Protein backbone atom coordinates (compact mmCIF):
# COMPACT_ATOMS: atom_id res chain seq x y z
CA UNK A 1 0.00 0.00 0.00
CA UNK A 2 2.73 2.42 1.12
CA UNK A 3 4.94 1.35 -1.79
CA UNK A 4 2.15 1.93 -4.29
CA UNK A 5 1.45 5.37 -2.85
CA UNK A 6 5.16 6.26 -3.00
CA UNK A 7 5.38 4.99 -6.58
CA UNK A 8 2.32 6.93 -7.71
CA UNK A 9 3.37 10.12 -5.89
CA UNK A 10 6.94 10.10 -7.20
CA UNK A 11 5.77 9.23 -10.73
CA UNK A 12 3.17 12.01 -10.83
CA UNK A 13 5.42 14.62 -9.24
CA UNK A 14 8.43 13.89 -11.45
CA UNK A 15 6.19 13.71 -14.56
CA UNK A 16 4.52 17.05 -13.83
CA UNK A 17 7.87 18.65 -13.07
CA UNK A 18 9.27 17.33 -16.35
CA UNK A 19 6.38 18.90 -18.28
CA UNK A 20 7.10 22.26 -16.56
CA UNK A 21 10.82 21.87 -17.31
CA UNK A 22 10.07 21.19 -20.99
CA UNK A 23 7.79 24.23 -21.16
CA UNK A 24 10.54 26.35 -19.55
CA UNK A 25 13.10 25.10 -22.09
CA UNK A 26 10.84 25.98 -25.03
CA UNK A 27 10.10 29.37 -23.43
CA UNK A 28 13.85 30.06 -23.14
CA UNK A 29 14.35 29.14 -26.79
CA UNK A 30 11.51 31.40 -27.98
CA UNK A 31 12.35 34.31 -25.66
CA UNK A 32 16.02 34.34 -26.70
CA UNK A 33 14.99 34.18 -30.36
CA UNK A 34 12.51 37.05 -29.90
CA UNK A 35 15.18 39.07 -28.07
CA UNK A 36 17.58 38.68 -31.00
CA UNK A 37 14.91 39.76 -33.48
CA UNK A 38 14.10 42.69 -31.17
CA UNK A 39 17.78 43.61 -30.99
CA UNK A 40 18.06 43.64 -34.78
CA UNK A 41 15.00 45.91 -34.92
CA UNK A 42 16.40 48.18 -32.21
CA UNK A 43 14.18 47.12 -29.31
CA UNK A 44 15.53 44.09 -27.40
CA UNK A 45 13.41 42.50 -24.65
CA UNK A 46 14.58 43.94 -21.33
CA UNK A 47 15.72 41.41 -18.70
CA UNK A 48 16.09 38.46 -21.10
CA UNK A 49 19.38 37.54 -19.45
CA UNK A 50 17.74 37.39 -16.02
CA UNK A 51 14.67 35.43 -17.16
CA UNK A 52 16.83 32.93 -19.09
CA UNK A 53 19.14 32.40 -16.08
CA UNK A 54 16.20 31.79 -13.73
CA UNK A 55 14.30 29.62 -16.21
CA UNK A 56 17.52 27.66 -16.87
CA UNK A 57 17.67 26.85 -13.15
CA UNK A 58 14.07 25.65 -13.29
CA UNK A 59 14.74 23.53 -16.41
CA UNK A 60 17.52 21.55 -14.73
CA UNK A 61 16.03 21.48 -11.21
CA UNK A 62 12.60 20.32 -12.41
CA UNK A 63 14.12 17.73 -14.76
CA UNK A 64 16.28 16.21 -12.00
CA UNK A 65 13.75 13.78 -10.42
CA UNK A 66 12.59 12.54 -13.84
CA UNK A 67 16.19 12.02 -14.98
CA UNK A 68 16.95 10.01 -11.82
CA UNK A 69 13.79 7.95 -12.27
CA UNK A 70 14.74 7.23 -15.89
CA UNK A 71 18.25 6.18 -14.71
CA UNK A 72 19.65 9.00 -16.81
CA UNK A 73 22.73 9.72 -14.68
CA UNK A 74 26.17 8.25 -15.36
CA UNK A 75 26.96 5.21 -13.21
CA UNK A 76 28.81 1.93 -13.55
CA UNK A 77 27.89 -1.57 -12.45
CA UNK A 78 31.35 -3.16 -12.85
CA UNK A 79 31.58 -4.19 -9.16
CA UNK A 80 27.84 -4.59 -8.64
CA UNK A 81 27.56 -7.17 -11.42
CA UNK A 82 30.18 -9.41 -9.79
CA UNK A 83 28.66 -9.46 -6.31
CA UNK A 84 26.38 -12.03 -4.69
CA UNK A 85 22.70 -11.25 -4.05
CA UNK A 86 23.07 -10.10 -0.43
CA UNK A 87 26.18 -7.95 -1.02
CA UNK A 88 24.51 -6.42 -4.06
CA UNK A 89 21.43 -5.60 -1.97
CA UNK A 90 23.48 -3.97 0.82
CA UNK A 91 25.47 -1.92 -1.70
CA UNK A 92 22.36 -0.84 -3.61
CA UNK A 93 20.60 0.31 -0.42
CA UNK A 94 23.79 2.06 0.77
CA UNK A 95 24.20 4.01 -2.47
CA UNK A 96 20.53 5.12 -2.34
CA UNK A 97 21.05 6.35 1.23
CA UNK A 98 24.12 8.35 0.18
CA UNK A 99 21.94 9.98 -2.48
CA UNK A 100 19.13 10.62 0.01
CA UNK A 101 21.50 12.24 2.51
CA UNK A 102 23.22 14.46 -0.05
CA UNK A 103 19.98 15.72 -1.63
CA UNK A 104 18.31 16.22 1.77
CA UNK A 105 21.24 18.43 2.77
CA UNK A 106 21.24 20.21 -0.61
CA UNK A 107 17.47 20.80 -0.31
CA UNK A 108 17.85 22.09 3.25
CA UNK A 109 20.76 24.34 2.21
CA UNK A 110 18.77 25.69 -0.73
CA UNK A 111 15.71 26.52 1.43
CA UNK A 112 18.00 28.24 3.97
CA UNK A 113 19.59 30.17 1.11
CA UNK A 114 16.10 31.17 -0.08
CA UNK A 115 15.18 32.42 3.42
CA UNK A 116 18.38 34.50 3.56
CA UNK A 117 17.78 35.91 0.06
CA UNK A 118 14.17 36.74 0.94
CA UNK A 119 15.23 38.45 4.17
CA UNK A 120 17.89 40.51 2.40
CA UNK A 121 15.43 41.48 -0.36
CA UNK A 122 17.99 40.72 -3.06
CA UNK A 123 16.56 41.16 -6.58
CA UNK A 124 17.88 41.20 -10.16
CA UNK A 125 19.12 44.47 -11.65
CA UNK A 126 16.70 44.99 -14.56
CA UNK A 127 13.38 43.32 -13.74
CA UNK A 128 13.77 43.27 -9.95
CA UNK A 129 13.00 39.54 -9.88
CA UNK A 130 13.58 38.09 -6.40
CA UNK A 131 16.35 35.45 -6.31
CA UNK A 132 14.65 33.47 -3.56
CA UNK A 133 11.98 32.07 -5.92
CA UNK A 134 14.62 30.02 -7.73
CA UNK A 135 16.26 28.93 -4.47
CA UNK A 136 12.91 27.69 -3.09
CA UNK A 137 12.07 25.95 -6.39
CA UNK A 138 15.44 24.18 -6.46
CA UNK A 139 15.06 23.24 -2.79
CA UNK A 140 11.64 21.75 -3.53
CA UNK A 141 13.04 19.87 -6.55
CA UNK A 142 15.81 18.39 -4.39
CA UNK A 143 13.21 17.12 -1.87
CA UNK A 144 11.24 15.47 -4.70
CA UNK A 145 14.56 13.92 -5.75
CA UNK A 146 14.85 12.54 -2.20
CA UNK A 147 11.37 11.04 -2.62
CA UNK A 148 12.47 9.32 -5.84
CA UNK A 149 15.56 7.91 -4.10
CA UNK A 150 13.43 6.66 -1.15
CA UNK A 151 11.16 4.96 -3.69
CA UNK A 152 14.20 3.37 -5.39
CA UNK A 153 15.51 2.12 -2.01
CA UNK A 154 12.07 0.67 -1.23
CA UNK A 155 12.02 -0.99 -4.66
CA UNK A 156 15.43 -2.61 -3.97
CA UNK A 157 14.07 -3.94 -0.65
CA UNK A 158 10.84 -5.17 -2.26
CA UNK A 159 12.62 -6.98 -5.10
CA UNK A 160 14.94 -8.63 -2.52
CA UNK A 161 11.93 -10.00 -0.60
CA UNK A 162 10.33 -11.30 -3.79
Amino acid at each position, binding site marked *: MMGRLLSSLSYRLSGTM*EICAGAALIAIMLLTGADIVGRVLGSPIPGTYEIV*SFAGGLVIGLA*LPGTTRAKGH*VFTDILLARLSGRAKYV*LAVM*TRFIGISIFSLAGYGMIMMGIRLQASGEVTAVLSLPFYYV*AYALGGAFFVQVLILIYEAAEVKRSRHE
Partner: protein
Amino acid sequence: MNEALIGCIGLCALLLFFLAGIELAFAMTFVGFVGFACLRSLPAAVDLLAKDFFDTFASYAFVVIPLFVLMGQIAFNSGMAEQMYKTARKFTGHVPGGLALATVAGATVFKAVSGSTLATAATFSSIAVPEMDKYGYSRKLSTGVVASVGTLGILLPPSGTLIILAMITDQSVGRLFLAGIAPGLLIAFLFFMTILVWCGISPSLAPRRPAVEWKERLRSVPHIFWPLLVFAVTVGGLLAGFFTPTEAGSVGAIAVLALTVLKRDLNFTNFVKSVGESLRLGCMVLMLVGGSTVLGHFMVISQIPSAAAGWTLNLHVHPYAVVAVMVLIYLLGGSFIDDMAFMILATPIFFPVAMKLGFDPMWFSIVIGVTMMIGVVTPPVAVAAFIVKNITRESMGVVYKGVLPFLLSLFLCLVLLFLFPGLVTYLPDLLMR
Protein backbone atom coordinates in the same frame (compact mmCIF):
# COMPACT_ATOMS: atom_id res chain seq x y z
CA MET B 1 45.39 15.45 9.52
CA ASN B 2 47.27 16.92 6.56
CA GLU B 3 44.93 18.68 4.05
CA ALA B 4 46.47 17.00 1.00
CA LEU B 5 46.13 13.60 2.70
CA ILE B 6 42.41 14.24 3.28
CA GLY B 7 42.18 15.20 -0.41
CA CYS B 8 43.83 11.90 -1.43
CA ILE B 9 41.52 9.92 0.86
CA GLY B 10 38.61 11.76 -0.76
CA LEU B 11 39.73 10.77 -4.27
CA CYS B 12 40.14 7.10 -3.20
CA ALA B 13 36.67 7.20 -1.60
CA LEU B 14 35.29 8.66 -4.83
CA LEU B 15 36.69 5.74 -6.81
CA LEU B 16 35.22 3.24 -4.32
CA PHE B 17 31.79 4.92 -4.36
CA PHE B 18 31.74 4.94 -8.11
CA LEU B 19 32.69 1.26 -8.32
CA ALA B 20 29.89 0.59 -5.81
CA GLY B 21 27.42 1.75 -8.47
CA ILE B 22 26.47 5.20 -7.17
CA GLU B 23 25.86 7.83 -9.84
CA LEU B 24 29.11 9.72 -10.50
CA ALA B 25 27.50 13.13 -10.01
CA PHE B 26 26.11 12.07 -6.60
CA ALA B 27 29.47 10.53 -5.61
CA MET B 28 31.41 13.69 -6.53
CA THR B 29 28.93 15.83 -4.58
CA PHE B 30 29.06 13.55 -1.53
CA VAL B 31 32.87 13.35 -1.42
CA GLY B 32 33.21 17.09 -2.02
CA PHE B 33 30.67 17.83 0.70
CA VAL B 34 32.16 15.49 3.33
CA GLY B 35 35.72 16.63 2.51
CA PHE B 36 34.76 20.30 2.76
CA ALA B 37 32.95 19.63 6.06
CA CYS B 38 36.09 17.89 7.43
CA LEU B 39 38.43 20.74 6.40
CA ARG B 40 36.08 23.63 7.25
CA SER B 41 32.77 22.96 9.02
CA LEU B 42 29.40 21.29 8.45
CA PRO B 43 27.42 24.57 8.08
CA ALA B 44 30.04 25.86 5.61
CA ALA B 45 29.70 22.63 3.60
CA VAL B 46 25.88 22.89 3.51
CA ASP B 47 26.19 26.50 2.28
CA LEU B 48 28.72 25.43 -0.35
CA LEU B 49 26.41 22.67 -1.58
CA ALA B 50 23.48 25.06 -2.02
CA LYS B 51 25.58 27.85 -3.55
CA ASP B 52 27.39 25.59 -6.05
CA PHE B 53 24.16 24.00 -7.29
CA PHE B 54 22.38 27.37 -7.45
CA ASP B 55 25.26 28.93 -9.41
CA THR B 56 25.48 25.98 -11.81
CA PHE B 57 21.77 25.44 -12.46
CA ALA B 58 20.66 29.09 -12.57
CA SER B 59 23.54 30.17 -14.79
CA TYR B 60 22.88 31.94 -18.10
CA ALA B 61 26.06 30.44 -19.56
CA PHE B 62 25.08 26.83 -18.81
CA VAL B 63 21.65 27.14 -20.47
CA VAL B 64 23.57 26.66 -23.71
CA ILE B 65 23.89 22.92 -22.98
CA PRO B 66 20.19 21.89 -23.08
CA LEU B 67 19.64 24.24 -26.04
CA PHE B 68 22.35 22.71 -28.24
CA VAL B 69 21.23 19.23 -27.13
CA LEU B 70 17.68 20.18 -28.20
CA MET B 71 18.95 21.30 -31.61
CA GLY B 72 20.73 17.95 -32.08
CA GLN B 73 17.79 15.89 -30.81
CA ILE B 74 15.37 17.58 -33.22
CA ALA B 75 17.81 16.91 -36.09
CA PHE B 76 18.20 13.30 -34.90
CA ASN B 77 14.47 12.58 -34.57
CA SER B 78 13.53 14.27 -37.86
CA GLY B 79 15.52 11.88 -40.04
CA MET B 80 17.73 14.70 -41.36
CA ALA B 81 20.79 12.43 -41.29
CA GLU B 82 19.24 10.04 -43.80
CA GLN B 83 18.85 12.79 -46.40
CA MET B 84 22.45 13.90 -45.86
CA TYR B 85 23.70 10.34 -46.27
CA LYS B 86 21.69 9.86 -49.47
CA THR B 87 23.17 13.06 -50.94
CA ALA B 88 26.74 12.09 -50.01
CA ARG B 89 26.14 8.60 -51.42
CA LYS B 90 25.21 10.03 -54.84
CA PHE B 91 28.55 11.84 -55.03
CA THR B 92 30.91 9.13 -53.73
CA GLY B 93 28.99 5.85 -54.09
CA HIS B 94 30.78 4.78 -57.31
CA VAL B 95 34.38 5.02 -56.04
CA PRO B 96 36.06 2.15 -54.12
CA GLY B 97 34.62 2.18 -50.59
CA GLY B 98 32.26 4.91 -51.79
CA LEU B 99 29.41 4.12 -49.40
CA ALA B 100 31.83 4.19 -46.46
CA LEU B 101 33.18 7.53 -47.74
CA ALA B 102 29.57 8.77 -47.97
CA THR B 103 29.08 7.76 -44.34
CA VAL B 104 32.04 9.93 -43.27
CA ALA B 105 30.87 12.85 -45.44
CA GLY B 106 27.23 12.52 -44.32
CA ALA B 107 28.22 12.34 -40.64
CA THR B 108 30.51 15.37 -41.01
CA VAL B 109 27.65 17.42 -42.46
CA PHE B 110 25.15 16.02 -39.92
CA LYS B 111 27.56 17.20 -37.25
CA ALA B 112 26.82 20.74 -38.35
CA VAL B 113 23.44 20.48 -36.62
CA SER B 114 23.97 17.74 -34.02
CA GLY B 115 26.53 17.66 -31.24
CA SER B 116 25.90 14.10 -30.13
CA THR B 117 28.45 11.33 -30.73
CA LEU B 118 26.08 8.53 -29.80
CA ALA B 119 23.14 9.90 -31.81
CA THR B 120 25.41 10.07 -34.88
CA ALA B 121 26.67 6.50 -34.37
CA ALA B 122 23.11 5.22 -33.80
CA THR B 123 21.67 7.09 -36.79
CA PHE B 124 24.31 5.98 -39.26
CA SER B 125 24.18 2.38 -37.96
CA SER B 126 20.55 2.21 -38.98
CA ILE B 127 20.93 4.12 -42.27
CA ALA B 128 24.35 3.30 -43.70
CA VAL B 129 24.99 -0.31 -42.60
CA PRO B 130 21.88 -1.79 -44.33
CA GLU B 131 22.81 0.13 -47.51
CA MET B 132 26.39 -1.18 -47.39
CA ASP B 133 25.03 -4.71 -46.70
CA LYS B 134 22.91 -4.41 -49.86
CA TYR B 135 26.00 -3.76 -51.98
CA GLY B 136 28.07 -6.55 -50.40
CA TYR B 137 30.35 -4.43 -48.20
CA SER B 138 32.29 -6.26 -45.50
CA ARG B 139 30.66 -5.90 -42.07
CA LYS B 140 34.15 -5.15 -40.69
CA LEU B 141 34.31 -1.99 -42.80
CA SER B 142 30.67 -0.93 -42.46
CA THR B 143 30.39 -1.32 -38.67
CA GLY B 144 33.90 0.08 -38.10
CA VAL B 145 33.16 3.25 -40.06
CA VAL B 146 29.78 3.97 -38.42
CA ALA B 147 31.25 3.46 -34.93
CA SER B 148 34.13 5.82 -35.75
CA VAL B 149 32.25 8.65 -37.50
CA GLY B 150 30.24 9.33 -34.35
CA THR B 151 33.43 10.55 -32.68
CA LEU B 152 33.63 13.51 -35.10
CA GLY B 153 30.92 15.10 -32.94
CA ILE B 154 33.44 15.69 -30.18
CA LEU B 155 35.58 18.17 -32.15
CA LEU B 156 33.41 19.68 -34.87
CA PRO B 157 31.19 22.58 -33.73
CA PRO B 158 28.63 22.84 -32.25
CA SER B 159 30.16 20.20 -29.98
CA GLY B 160 28.59 19.57 -26.57
CA THR B 161 31.93 18.29 -25.29
CA LEU B 162 33.77 21.49 -26.29
CA ILE B 163 31.02 23.65 -24.72
CA ILE B 164 31.44 21.79 -21.40
CA LEU B 165 35.25 21.96 -21.65
CA ALA B 166 35.03 25.71 -22.29
CA MET B 167 32.73 26.14 -19.26
CA ILE B 168 34.81 24.14 -16.80
CA THR B 169 38.12 25.65 -17.92
CA ASP B 170 36.79 29.21 -18.26
CA GLN B 171 37.54 29.60 -21.98
CA SER B 172 35.63 31.23 -24.84
CA VAL B 173 33.20 28.76 -26.46
CA GLY B 174 33.67 30.48 -29.84
CA ARG B 175 37.47 30.20 -29.75
CA LEU B 176 37.27 26.55 -28.73
CA PHE B 177 34.78 25.84 -31.55
CA LEU B 178 37.25 27.42 -34.00
CA ALA B 179 40.11 25.43 -32.45
CA GLY B 180 38.23 22.17 -33.07
CA ILE B 181 37.52 22.78 -36.78
CA ALA B 182 40.96 22.00 -38.29
CA PRO B 183 41.64 18.87 -36.18
CA GLY B 184 38.04 17.68 -36.75
CA LEU B 185 38.33 18.07 -40.53
CA LEU B 186 41.81 16.52 -40.41
CA ILE B 187 40.33 13.45 -38.73
CA ALA B 188 37.52 13.28 -41.32
CA PHE B 189 40.23 13.45 -44.03
CA LEU B 190 42.25 10.72 -42.29
CA PHE B 191 39.09 8.56 -42.15
CA PHE B 192 38.67 9.12 -45.92
CA MET B 193 42.29 8.08 -46.54
CA THR B 194 41.91 5.05 -44.27
CA ILE B 195 38.91 3.84 -46.30
CA LEU B 196 40.64 4.44 -49.66
CA VAL B 197 43.87 2.69 -48.59
CA TRP B 198 42.01 -0.19 -46.92
CA CYS B 199 39.78 -0.74 -49.93
CA GLY B 200 42.81 -0.38 -52.22
CA ILE B 201 44.57 -3.21 -50.34
CA SER B 202 41.44 -5.42 -50.13
CA PRO B 203 39.04 -4.46 -52.96
CA SER B 204 36.66 -7.28 -51.92
CA LEU B 205 35.78 -5.26 -48.78
CA ALA B 206 33.71 -2.81 -50.79
CA PRO B 207 32.43 -3.72 -54.30
CA ARG B 208 31.89 -0.72 -56.59
CA ARG B 209 28.37 0.40 -57.46
CA PRO B 210 27.24 2.25 -60.58
CA ALA B 211 27.75 6.00 -60.75
CA VAL B 212 24.75 8.32 -60.40
CA GLU B 213 24.12 10.93 -63.11
CA TRP B 214 25.25 14.49 -62.36
CA LYS B 215 21.72 15.80 -62.78
CA GLU B 216 20.49 13.57 -59.98
CA ARG B 217 23.48 14.47 -57.81
CA LEU B 218 22.83 18.20 -58.13
CA ARG B 219 19.13 17.71 -57.46
CA SER B 220 19.97 16.29 -54.02
CA VAL B 221 22.19 19.23 -52.99
CA PRO B 222 19.37 21.22 -51.24
CA HIS B 223 19.17 18.41 -48.67
CA ILE B 224 22.56 19.48 -47.34
CA PHE B 225 22.29 23.17 -48.21
CA TRP B 226 19.70 24.09 -45.55
CA PRO B 227 21.38 22.30 -42.63
CA LEU B 228 24.69 23.89 -43.64
CA LEU B 229 22.98 27.30 -43.75
CA VAL B 230 21.67 26.72 -40.20
CA PHE B 231 25.23 25.82 -39.16
CA ALA B 232 26.64 28.92 -40.88
CA VAL B 233 24.13 31.21 -39.15
CA THR B 234 24.43 29.58 -35.71
CA VAL B 235 28.17 29.02 -35.46
CA GLY B 236 29.01 31.98 -37.75
CA GLY B 237 26.90 34.32 -35.59
CA LEU B 238 28.64 33.05 -32.49
CA LEU B 239 32.12 33.42 -33.96
CA ALA B 240 31.32 36.88 -35.32
CA GLY B 241 30.30 37.96 -31.82
CA PHE B 242 26.69 38.58 -32.84
CA PHE B 243 25.32 35.85 -30.53
CA THR B 244 26.31 34.64 -27.09
CA PRO B 245 26.68 30.81 -26.99
CA THR B 246 23.22 30.58 -25.32
CA GLU B 247 21.68 32.71 -28.08
CA ALA B 248 23.44 30.60 -30.72
CA GLY B 249 21.92 27.48 -29.13
CA SER B 250 18.45 29.06 -29.23
CA VAL B 251 18.82 30.24 -32.83
CA GLY B 252 20.10 26.79 -33.87
CA ALA B 253 17.22 24.99 -32.13
CA ILE B 254 14.61 27.37 -33.62
CA ALA B 255 16.16 27.11 -37.10
CA VAL B 256 16.34 23.29 -37.08
CA LEU B 257 12.80 23.13 -35.68
CA ALA B 258 11.49 25.51 -38.37
CA LEU B 259 13.36 23.60 -41.10
CA THR B 260 12.03 20.19 -40.03
CA VAL B 261 8.47 21.47 -39.50
CA LEU B 262 8.39 23.21 -42.90
CA LYS B 263 9.70 20.06 -44.59
CA ARG B 264 7.14 18.00 -42.58
CA ASP B 265 9.96 15.82 -41.23
CA LEU B 266 9.03 16.26 -37.56
CA ASN B 267 5.72 15.38 -35.95
CA PHE B 268 4.52 16.43 -32.49
CA THR B 269 5.42 13.07 -30.89
CA ASN B 270 9.02 13.33 -32.08
CA PHE B 271 9.19 16.96 -30.94
CA VAL B 272 8.05 15.97 -27.42
CA LYS B 273 10.55 13.10 -27.49
CA SER B 274 13.33 15.54 -28.49
CA VAL B 275 12.45 17.92 -25.62
CA GLY B 276 12.34 15.03 -23.10
CA GLU B 277 15.71 13.67 -24.23
CA SER B 278 17.22 17.17 -24.12
CA LEU B 279 16.01 17.64 -20.54
CA ARG B 280 17.50 14.34 -19.39
CA LEU B 281 20.81 14.80 -21.21
CA GLY B 282 21.11 18.44 -20.09
CA CYS B 283 20.27 17.50 -16.51
CA MET B 284 22.78 14.62 -16.54
CA VAL B 285 25.56 16.91 -17.78
CA LEU B 286 24.74 19.80 -15.42
CA MET B 287 24.49 17.44 -12.41
CA LEU B 288 28.00 16.27 -13.32
CA VAL B 289 29.17 19.89 -13.60
CA GLY B 290 27.49 20.75 -10.25
CA GLY B 291 29.02 17.71 -8.54
CA SER B 292 32.42 18.48 -10.04
CA THR B 293 32.14 22.09 -8.79
CA VAL B 294 31.51 20.89 -5.20
CA LEU B 295 34.37 18.38 -5.52
CA GLY B 296 36.56 21.08 -7.10
CA HIS B 297 36.09 23.38 -4.10
CA PHE B 298 37.12 20.57 -1.77
CA MET B 299 40.15 19.83 -4.00
CA VAL B 300 41.20 23.50 -3.94
CA ILE B 301 41.18 23.74 -0.15
CA SER B 302 42.93 20.36 0.11
CA GLN B 303 45.57 21.92 -2.22
CA ILE B 304 45.74 18.79 -4.40
CA PRO B 305 45.82 20.59 -7.81
CA SER B 306 48.57 23.01 -6.73
CA ALA B 307 50.53 20.17 -5.06
CA ALA B 308 50.17 18.07 -8.24
CA ALA B 309 51.31 21.01 -10.38
CA GLY B 310 54.31 21.68 -8.10
CA TRP B 311 55.23 18.00 -8.03
CA THR B 312 55.01 17.75 -11.82
CA LEU B 313 57.21 20.83 -12.31
CA ASN B 314 59.84 19.30 -10.02
CA LEU B 315 59.94 16.09 -12.04
CA HIS B 316 62.18 17.72 -14.68
CA VAL B 317 60.68 15.69 -17.51
CA HIS B 318 59.63 17.09 -20.87
CA PRO B 319 56.19 18.79 -20.58
CA TYR B 320 54.96 16.69 -23.54
CA ALA B 321 55.74 13.54 -21.51
CA VAL B 322 53.52 14.88 -18.69
CA VAL B 323 50.66 15.56 -21.13
CA ALA B 324 51.19 12.08 -22.66
CA VAL B 325 50.75 10.58 -19.16
CA MET B 326 47.59 12.68 -18.69
CA VAL B 327 46.27 11.38 -22.03
CA LEU B 328 46.92 7.85 -20.78
CA ILE B 329 45.06 8.59 -17.53
CA TYR B 330 42.09 9.98 -19.50
CA LEU B 331 42.10 6.82 -21.63
CA LEU B 332 42.33 4.54 -18.58
CA GLY B 333 39.72 6.52 -16.63
CA GLY B 334 37.43 6.59 -19.64
CA SER B 335 37.76 2.80 -19.86
CA PHE B 336 35.89 2.39 -16.58
CA ILE B 337 33.73 5.52 -16.44
CA ASP B 338 31.82 7.23 -19.25
CA ASP B 339 34.40 9.38 -21.12
CA MET B 340 32.44 12.63 -20.76
CA ALA B 341 31.95 12.03 -17.02
CA PHE B 342 35.65 11.30 -16.53
CA MET B 343 36.53 14.45 -18.46
CA ILE B 344 34.35 16.56 -16.14
CA LEU B 345 35.90 14.85 -13.13
CA ALA B 346 39.57 14.97 -14.18
CA THR B 347 39.90 18.23 -16.11
CA PRO B 348 39.70 20.57 -13.08
CA ILE B 349 42.66 18.63 -11.63
CA PHE B 350 44.80 18.31 -14.79
CA PHE B 351 44.03 21.62 -16.50
CA PRO B 352 45.88 23.81 -13.93
CA VAL B 353 48.89 21.48 -14.20
CA ALA B 354 48.94 21.82 -18.00
CA MET B 355 48.67 25.61 -17.68
CA LYS B 356 51.59 25.70 -15.23
CA LEU B 357 53.59 23.70 -17.78
CA GLY B 358 52.94 26.50 -20.27
CA PHE B 359 50.54 24.80 -22.68
CA ASP B 360 47.92 26.69 -24.63
CA PRO B 361 44.49 26.11 -23.01
CA MET B 362 42.83 25.53 -26.41
CA TRP B 363 45.52 23.07 -27.47
CA PHE B 364 45.19 21.11 -24.22
CA SER B 365 41.37 21.05 -24.55
CA ILE B 366 41.52 19.73 -28.12
CA VAL B 367 44.06 17.08 -27.08
CA ILE B 368 41.55 15.99 -24.41
CA GLY B 369 38.85 16.01 -27.11
CA VAL B 370 40.86 13.70 -29.43
CA THR B 371 41.65 11.47 -26.43
CA MET B 372 37.90 11.22 -25.76
CA MET B 373 37.34 10.31 -29.41
CA ILE B 374 39.76 7.43 -28.92
CA GLY B 375 38.04 6.53 -25.63
CA VAL B 376 34.53 6.15 -27.05
CA VAL B 377 35.68 3.47 -29.52
CA THR B 378 38.25 1.73 -27.26
CA PRO B 379 37.31 -1.28 -25.10
CA PRO B 380 36.16 -2.06 -22.45
CA VAL B 381 33.73 0.92 -22.29
CA ALA B 382 33.49 1.68 -26.02
CA VAL B 383 29.99 3.20 -26.01
CA ALA B 384 29.92 3.98 -29.73
CA ALA B 385 30.97 0.40 -30.57
CA PHE B 386 28.31 -1.00 -28.20
CA ILE B 387 25.60 1.03 -29.91
CA VAL B 388 26.69 -0.15 -33.37
CA LYS B 389 26.83 -3.76 -32.13
CA ASN B 390 23.31 -3.54 -30.70
CA ILE B 391 21.77 -1.91 -33.78
CA THR B 392 23.53 -4.02 -36.42
CA ARG B 393 23.47 -7.25 -34.33
CA GLU B 394 27.09 -7.84 -35.29
CA SER B 395 29.64 -9.45 -32.95
CA MET B 396 31.78 -7.12 -30.85
CA GLY B 397 34.93 -8.70 -32.31
CA VAL B 398 33.97 -7.69 -35.88
CA VAL B 399 33.09 -4.12 -34.80
CA TYR B 400 36.42 -3.73 -32.95
CA LYS B 401 38.37 -5.14 -35.93
CA GLY B 402 36.61 -2.60 -38.12
CA VAL B 403 37.32 0.26 -35.72
CA LEU B 404 41.06 -0.52 -35.50
CA PRO B 405 42.20 1.25 -38.74
CA PHE B 406 40.17 4.34 -37.78
CA LEU B 407 41.67 4.23 -34.30
CA LEU B 408 45.11 4.50 -35.95
CA SER B 409 43.88 7.68 -37.70
CA LEU B 410 42.88 9.14 -34.33
CA PHE B 411 46.28 8.30 -32.81
CA LEU B 412 47.98 9.81 -35.87
CA CYS B 413 45.97 13.01 -35.35
CA LEU B 414 47.03 13.09 -31.68
CA VAL B 415 50.70 12.78 -32.72
CA LEU B 416 50.22 15.55 -35.30
CA LEU B 417 48.72 17.81 -32.63
CA PHE B 418 51.82 17.30 -30.47
CA LEU B 419 54.11 17.99 -33.44
CA PHE B 420 52.13 20.93 -34.86
CA PRO B 421 50.17 22.75 -32.10
CA GLY B 422 49.37 25.41 -34.71
CA LEU B 423 46.75 23.02 -36.12
CA VAL B 424 44.66 24.01 -33.11
CA THR B 425 45.70 27.58 -32.41
CA TYR B 426 46.09 29.06 -35.92
CA LEU B 427 42.41 29.50 -36.80
CA PRO B 428 41.24 31.04 -33.47
CA ASP B 429 44.31 33.30 -33.34
CA LEU B 430 43.64 34.43 -36.90
CA LEU B 431 39.90 35.03 -36.60
CA MET B 432 39.25 35.85 -32.93
CA ARG B 433 42.18 37.82 -31.56
